Every structure is written in C-alpha cells, then in structure tokens.
C-alpha cells in the first residue's frame, strides 16, 4: 500500500477536505455565533463568554457539573478499583459476572435507566435531599463500562498475583496491597478511567434533565431561548474542556504504549 496513483492522491485530498469541512464548520460556527452581539447589530463581543462567570444560575450549574465530575470519579475509583483487584486475586470465578454487570449499561439506553430509576431517586431525595450532587450515583453507573475497560486492560498488563503475593509475604494487609502496591502499577488505567468519566459527566443531559437537576447542559439548554450567545459560549467552552481531556487521554495511552515497548 505504498504506491498510489496521482488520481488517488487528488481524490484523497479532496475527500479529506470535505470531511474536515463537515466536522469543523459547525465548531467554527459555534465560535462565531457566541461572539455575536445579540439581535441584528453588527460587531463582536465577548459578553456571552463573561456571562458564564457573572450569571448566578450558569455559574452554579458549572460548579455543580464540575463537582459531579469529581465525585463521580472518586466514587467510581472507590467502588470499582478494589472490586476488580479483589476479583483478580481471590475470586476469579466472579470475574465474568463483574464484567457483564459493568458492560451492561452499554446495551441498556441511558433513557431506559432514567425511566426506571425514579423510585430509587425518590428514596435518595428522602434520605439525602435534592442536591444535584446526588446524580453522582446515576453517573457512576453511566461511566461503569468505560472505566471498567480502562482498568481491565491495565490490570491485564501487570502480574497482579505475584505482586500481591510478594507484598503479602512481607506482611502487608490486603488494604496495603491494593492501595500501595497494585494501584500505583495501574495508575495509567485509573487516569484513563477518570478522564473519560469526567468527559461523560460534563456533557450528560439525559439523567439531569429528566430528573430535574440543574447541571451545565441543562442550564445551557434552558437559557438558550433568552440568551442564545451565552448558551453557545458555554457549549464551546465545555466542548473544549472535554476535547482537551480526551486528547490528553490518547496522549497518555501512546506514552504508556511506548514505555511498554522499550
């Protein structure tokens, strides 16, 4: 596949330009729109961008979404990492069950879970109150498949059993084995899981809108009617953050790959 005719090369350049236009024009339009002066007046303004900080409602939604991202990552790590390590070390027979449960949210649309989760959430409201941060529980389910895959591949790359045996024979307890021996060795996987979780949580709309919580995407959609430019600015800002996170993720993966090869 090294020799290509010049006709193919021309076709490839034209096709790639077409794809690039399709994917980048909407993003540039978003930027263009967000800096327009509301109404039909000409000129440029960054008012819509500062609105993110100055507007009470939008600001608290941004804070809620960021806190949710942090809490979801923390909850996911606490719930999933010890479980997956323990399954590998002591109950390998349960590994298939854990895998199926973790990957289940891929085949069950999020909307279906929301439809069925209202009873659970009325209990949460009763026990914990109506803070948007209670969405953490639902979001941990949402990020379960992606986190599982990231953690599983990094666990498969190391010899957990030998590491654990060595530590145990030196007198380490199970908690020490998990926190101080295994986790530092799968740190790359933990970071990947965290990155993709943050990216998913920041854009999540299905749960938050239908359970009536004010997260960033919900407020973005709500203020669109009154101040479209601000919605667009917030959308582009969160898009940029998520893109940075996900590109960082691939960079991290490549570095790990290279380290593994050398």
């Amino acid at each position: 596949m090294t020799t290509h005719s010049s006709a193919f090369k021309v076709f490839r350049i034209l096709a790639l330009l077409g794809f690039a236009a399709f994917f980048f024009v909407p993003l540039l339009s978003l930027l263009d729109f967000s800096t327009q002066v509301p109404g039909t007046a000409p000129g440029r303004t960054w008012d819509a961008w500062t609105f993110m900080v100055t507007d009470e409602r939008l600001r608290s939604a941004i804070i809620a979404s960021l806190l949710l991202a942090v809490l979801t990552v923390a909850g996911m790590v606490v719930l999933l990492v010890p479980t997956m390590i323990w399954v590998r070390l002591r109950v390998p027979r349960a590994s298939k069950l854990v895998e199926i449960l973790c990957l289940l949210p891929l085949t069950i649309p999020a909307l279906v879970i929301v439809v069925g989760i209202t009873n659970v959430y009325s209990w949460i409201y009763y026990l914990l109150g109506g803070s948007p941060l209670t969405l953490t529980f639902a979001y941990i389910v949402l990020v379960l498949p992606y986190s599982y895959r990231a953690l599983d591949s990094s666990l498969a790359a190391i010899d957990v059993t030998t590491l654990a045996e060595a530590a145990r024979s030196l007198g380490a307890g199970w908690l020490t084995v998990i926190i101080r021996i295994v986790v530092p060795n799968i740190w790359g996987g933990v970071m990947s899981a965290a990155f993709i979780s943050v990216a998913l949580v920041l854009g999540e709309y299905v749960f938050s809108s239908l359970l009536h919580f004010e997260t960033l995407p919900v407020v973005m959609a709500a203020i669109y009617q009154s101040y479209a430019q601000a919605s667009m600015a917030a959308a582009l800002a969160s898009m940029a953050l998520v893109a940075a996170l996900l590109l960082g993720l691939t960079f991290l993966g490549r570095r790990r790959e290279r380290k593994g090869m050398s």
Partner: protein
Amino acid sequence: MSSAQQQSGRPARVGRVGRLLPLVPFLLFVAIFLIVPVVTVAVGAFRDADGAFTTDNLGALTDYAAVKALRGSLVLAGSTALIGAVFGALLAWLIVSAGPDSLLKRLTLAISGVLAQFGGVILAFAWIATIGIQGVVTLALQHITGFNLYGNGWLFSIPGLIVVYTYFQIPLMVIVFAPAIEGLRVQWREAAVSLGATRWQYWRHVAVPLLTPAFLGCALLLFANAFAAYATAAVLVSQGQPIVPLLIRQAITSEVLLGGANVGFALALEMILVVAVVMGAYSLLVRRTSRWLQ
C-alpha cells in the same frame, strides 16, 4: 497461591464468605442503580396505574403515535448507520492507506475519539449555529446565492436529526472499523497479485468479502448508538414526538395522560428489546471478524 495456606486456622466456610464480602458494595450498588431500574421498567410495562397485571401498555405500542415514533426511530437509526458506515469506512480507508504510523492517521483517530463522544446539547447548538435560522452557513448561502437553507425548519425534525447524528456516527465508524482495515495483511494482497489478480480483483474477491462482516457489525453498532440517543434530539425537537425517545419523554413528563408512566415503561422495554437484538447480532459478527483480526 493456595487458599488453604492463607486461611490456615480458620474454618473454610468463613474463608469463602470472607472472600465474597469485599464484592458486596459493588454488587449492592449495581443492584440498586442498574438492576432495580431495569426490573422496574420490565415489570412496570405489564402493570396498570393501580399495580394490577395488564397488557394494555403493550397494546399502546400499536397506537398510531407509538408506531409512527418507532418508524421514525428506525428510519433515523437506519439511515445514519448507513451514511455513517459508508463515509466512516471511506475515511478509515483513506487514513489507513496513508501509512500505519502517519500523522494523518493518528490525528484523525484522536479527533474521532473526541467527536464520537460529542453529542447532546453541545452538538445540537453547534448545528443550530451552523444551519439554524440565524446560522453562519445559512446566512452566508443566502447572501451569496440567495438560497434559503433553513427552509421550513427541517433542522428540527427527522431530516435535521439525520444530518446532526451523522456528525457523531462517522467518527464512531472510523474508530471501530479502522482496525479491521489495518488487519488486512500485505501478504494476502501480494499473494493475490502474484497469482495475477488486478487491484480491482483483489478488492472484489479478497478484501471486500473479508471486511463485510466487520462492516455490517460496525453498522449495527452505529444503529444501536443512534437508536438509543436522546439528548441531541431532546434539545433540537420541541414540537411533536417523531422518535421513540421523545415519545418516552412525553409519557413520563406529562401528568395529563392517565397511566402515562406505565406506557413509558412499555416504550422503554421496546427500546431495550430493539437494542438487545441489534447488539446481539453485532457481537456475533464481531466474533467472526476477530478470527482473522489478530
């Protein structure tokens, strides 16, 4: 590692229970936040508002609105799966043919990874900013050619959703299909050529038959992806319920409709079934591909 050695001095029964104990938080969590909701949907689909057994909710699935929404969803998922699969495969082929370690390939895969995750509110806004009534492209086209791209607001109905969904379907196809194209070994091509095959014959008799199961499998994945998507459509479409997810939204949010929640359960069950069938077929096809893709 023998467990007898480690558990020495303790009864074996306690050892087994002790080994399963650390799994309890995880299993409990998944049970409450994943299994209970799904069971609620499955059971609720067969109950009326008072909790008695009924099949009326399933009957409601044959109502005009429900059938129309299902058809809309199938058209939307089917067309965007087809468009996404064809163009995604083309893009995957273009970047793979640029060489295994080319910058073009790495960059496109990284960007695809971002764009495939890019849905919901942001995506809806991006397209409103592009081809909405005040959209950048709409205004530019109107200025240059006088053509009104916005028309009668097609962006906010199924044709618009098709365009918008394609935006995340093509990158998803690139990610899942590029490994299959890369899996085609140079030796197979050399073997075909040394037996006198032309480039066309190689594609017709070797590459395309090999790639077909992977292509169909990936297309099914795209279908399920579009069928289950909700957020983008929820932001774009405010009038009518042209697809199943939006009909579910109406069923669970409207207080007026009697027993609306249970009809919502039935519709949700319908979604589970469609996605389960599609994903089942997907995993069968992927298993076929993974036989030679290593």
